């Protein structure tokens, strides 16, 4: 297992939130990788599970703010997939891997940065213990 954290984000609000984050000067450690999809609604369990089983430490699904999905409720659909994968991981006892859903608006650079770093820190703490 590598320590990389994959951020799968949509091409709308979440993309803009990431851009805003970098514009504001908040930086991510290199273990974070980003990948763009048209909408987080196109994320499913296969995509999350295969990324994790292929070695990613964690996958963060980053979507638009809840009521703001361009495709109506793609982000909410993604949240349900993330919830199922969380359950699968815990049932399978797949320790040390995680999956999270994050909603971000394009004006939330700082908060997004804190949230993402939080996942990295939580992962590290787990690794040490």
């Amino acid at each position, binding site marked *: 297992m590598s320590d990389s954290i994959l951020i799968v984000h949509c091409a709308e609000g979440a993309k803009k939130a990431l851009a805003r984050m*970098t514009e504001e000067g908040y*930086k991510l*450690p290199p273990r974070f*990788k980003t990948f763009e*999809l048209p909408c987080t*609604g196109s994320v499913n369990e296969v995509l999350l599970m*295969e990324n994790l089983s292929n070695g990613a430490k964690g996958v963060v699904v980053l979507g638009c703010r809840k009521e703001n999905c361009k495709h109506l409720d793609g982000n909410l*659909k993604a949240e349900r*997939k993330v919830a199922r994968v969380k359950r699968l991981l815990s049932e399978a006892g797949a320790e040390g891997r995680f999956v999270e859903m994050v909603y971000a608006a394009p004006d939330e650079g700082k908060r997004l940065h804190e949230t993402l770093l939080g996942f990295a820190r939580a992962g590290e703490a787990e690794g040490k213990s």
Partner: protein
Amino acid sequence: MSDSIVAVLCDQQCSSKGPLQAANLTKRLAKSSTVGKLIVLDKACQDPEKKLKKVAGQKILFGGCPYLEESGFYSLAAEKLGLRPGEMLVTDVKSSILDLYDSSTAIEDNLIGRLESLGRLLADSAGLKDRPVKLKRNVLIFGSGYSGLKAALELSGEKLSVDLVETEDPPLAPGCLAEGLVCPGLIKELTSEVRTSEHVAVFPQAQMGPIQSVEKGFTVSFGGGELREYGAVIFAPERSEAPADQIGAWNLTQLYKRLHERRPIKGRIVFLLDRRSETPPEVIQDILIAAKVIKERSHAELWILLKQMRVALPGLQELYDTAREMGVIFVKYENLRLQNEFGDFQITGEDPQTGASFRISNPDRVIIPGTSGLSASALNAAETLGLRLLNGQYTQPYSLWRLANESNHPGVLVCGSARGNMDGGGVAADAASVVQALKARMIPEGITPVEHIASVDADKCVYCLTCVRVCPYHAMGKNIEERVAQPVTTACQGCGICAAECPAEAIDMRNLSRETVLAAMQAL
């Protein structure tokens, strides 16, 4: 066309980073299975045509700063290099790579991973060869109120034929005529114009079934089982205002009605705003106009009590000032109490800015705007037609990324009251903007499907209809003869939700197939 991908990076140091180590990157990229060539451009924004001529006709992965995208540089470059959608991929390298990571040693790794990942996506993509689809040149308008009539007339002027459907009686503008809210002279004028227009057909008291997306627009079923085809649909239903929540109070509809009938409104009048929720600016504007009319007609004492006092609309400040000049008393309140003891009615509260308390004794009339939304029959119609509702009230989802008049059916536009609380001027402007959006859809060249359109592998499809159920745009249909799901390419918005939900993995998004996406993610 050569199979290898050409990566082009801009190295103008607009961002704070140092120059790209082009030679080093090229060396490392040589191992790549997808990216064949790397070109580092200095100041890509300045005439790259010459520099890129050599690679014209190859698939190009372009990376630069956000300015390139904003300035329309990419589309210009694609045009000049003769690249169709699917043959060029662009990425905001400066902000998403160079600025994202604090460790400068990691930048190179990330950049390579990124080029590799996007290179895979591009390598497997295909240039778009879709022919634009021409929509049928007729429009269905649901609702014959002010905005419906206005839109019908504008469209008929464009030689588009319009079917105007009204479920109530009389067949044209029943709501407006019943309430007399909008100037009756104007309504009469519009209705007679519509009646005489050769391009507008009126369907009184029609019963409609669900709207179904098809390639050339929509089919709509009518009462007798008749199926008609349209290029576009406008949903312009009836709005209604809920009664004021205080007994004896008026809502705005009741107030307008009295104003319209020129019945006197005298004495101490209190507009009580923000009682339940924040009052939208257009309502404040309405109230100021009403206040002005009342003041002009009688010696009323007018109070406007607000909690929020948002001034957002252009011209509102002006109205506000005017009203002040007229002697309307504006009070911002907190801790408001309404007391009614044996007919002795008192409104008390505090002004949070001054801290002073105020008391209004025995007002002659309290006007509390009710929440405004679609009427019950309009909501019913929206449900029947398959339109999604927002907060159970409006058909236009509240989203930063959607056009103001889009419904969840691409090509079904919502208009007037279906978009919320609007005054007369707003409705007219709204009708005009819907007509504009619709004309853009019906341009003679037709509409081109989006790049990441869904495609169904007929061999894998088990015809379970999961995709048909989950598509937010009703863009997935059934191919009854082949027994497979079939996307309506003109309605598909390329969100990929159907592909994610398909249990047989039979759906792929064009230029974004699941194998490519996974491989690209691995490349990171």
